[in-house]
């Protein structure tokens, strides 16, 4: 480095060291307090969110007949086909629950694409154009 007076060198490096020290104390001492408080605040916000799906046990309370009659679809959650049931448990009207009777609602799972060995599948030519629920009761 070019020749400078010792006093200038000390002043300059001292200034630099001071700035660095302020940074490190800020980073390791002061800042972690802010991050941990914002994180615990977020956990509270996260926990206060309302669930939109309930449990099958709640459906059982009103729709007991349908519930105990299920054989093949008994392992399928009601809300998997009927959508979110939270509003329905409050308003209890037919417009607050999804009732999809179209073929696509059934073929979504039961179409005979490869790789579906664990369930019964059906080809889409099987009575094409007719709703599946005309012959097959999904709650059985």
């Amino acid at each position, binding site marked *: 480095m070019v020749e400078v007076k010792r006093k200038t060198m000390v002043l300059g490096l001292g200034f630099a060291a001071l700035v660095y020290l302020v940074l490190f104390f800020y*980073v*390791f*001492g002061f800042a*972690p*307090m802010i*991050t*941990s408080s*914002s*994180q615990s*605040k*977020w*956990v509270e*916000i*996260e*926990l*206060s*969110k*309302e*669930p*939109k*799906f*309930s*449990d099958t046990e709640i459906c059982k309370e009103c729709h007991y007949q349908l519930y105990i009659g299920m054989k093949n*679809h008994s*392992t*399928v*959650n009601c*809300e*998997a086909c009927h*959508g*979110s049931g939270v509003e329905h448990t409050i308003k209890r009207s037919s417009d607050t629950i999804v009732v999809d009777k179209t073929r*696509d609602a059934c*073929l*979504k*799972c039961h*179409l005979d*694409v*490869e*790789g*579906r*060995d*664990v*369930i019964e599948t059906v080809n889409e030519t099987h009575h094409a154009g007719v709703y599946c629920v005309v012959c097959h009761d999904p709650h059985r």
Partner: protein
Amino acid sequence: MNRRDFLKLIAGFLPAVALVRGQSAVDSEKSYVMVVDVNKCIGCGNCVVACKTENDVPMDFKLSRTWIEGYSIKEKIPIEESDIRKEVLSTSKNPFLDKSWIETTKGRKTFYVPKLCNHCANAPCVNVCPVYARFYTKDGVVLVDKDTCIGCKYCIVACPYGATFLHPEQKVTDKCTFCYHRIKKGLKPACVLACPTGARVFGDISDENSEVSKLVKENRVAVLKPEEGTFPRVLYIGLDSYVVE
């Protein structure tokens, strides 16, 4: 400051500690894990729809917190790119209902792999977030502090599994939270609830009597990308070696 902050101050000066910040197992009560059985997944996409409904992700958005990858493979050694067909379902419209998937998969080995955030114990996204918006909870779940996230997208780049994405409306990054607001109330995550075949099972692996512990004990389980050293919490039964990520 309390003792924890003071210890953090001291620990901060030790670079070795600062560099390997995995989640400490010392003070955790539970250790949540999801076990996914690939043999049972039929690719119906109920989990994607349920997750988007539960967690405010727009339905018509291309990305989702959880998604399904369909693999159709013609086994050959060495395998070529044309022998593997991979499709992704992450919207509410099921692409597996379209003709081209049905045509391609006829007669080939086909399976569906549900994927989600692995909530890694040594999560790359937690390590790289500049504002510490991603953090571990005591039970192993990795959460995104959306009030702090500045949207720099470093976590999206760093995640080896592609599990995180930019939320189009909130303009911060988003990812699966294991439905933290549900599991803390004793409910199951939305995707677990919606799965018709029971391919997804969620529970506490530190509890010996839980279903996940039993499944792990009785089956050979694998994780995605073990070589990255992320220690993921999503365990797969029946994972094929062609699922490289």
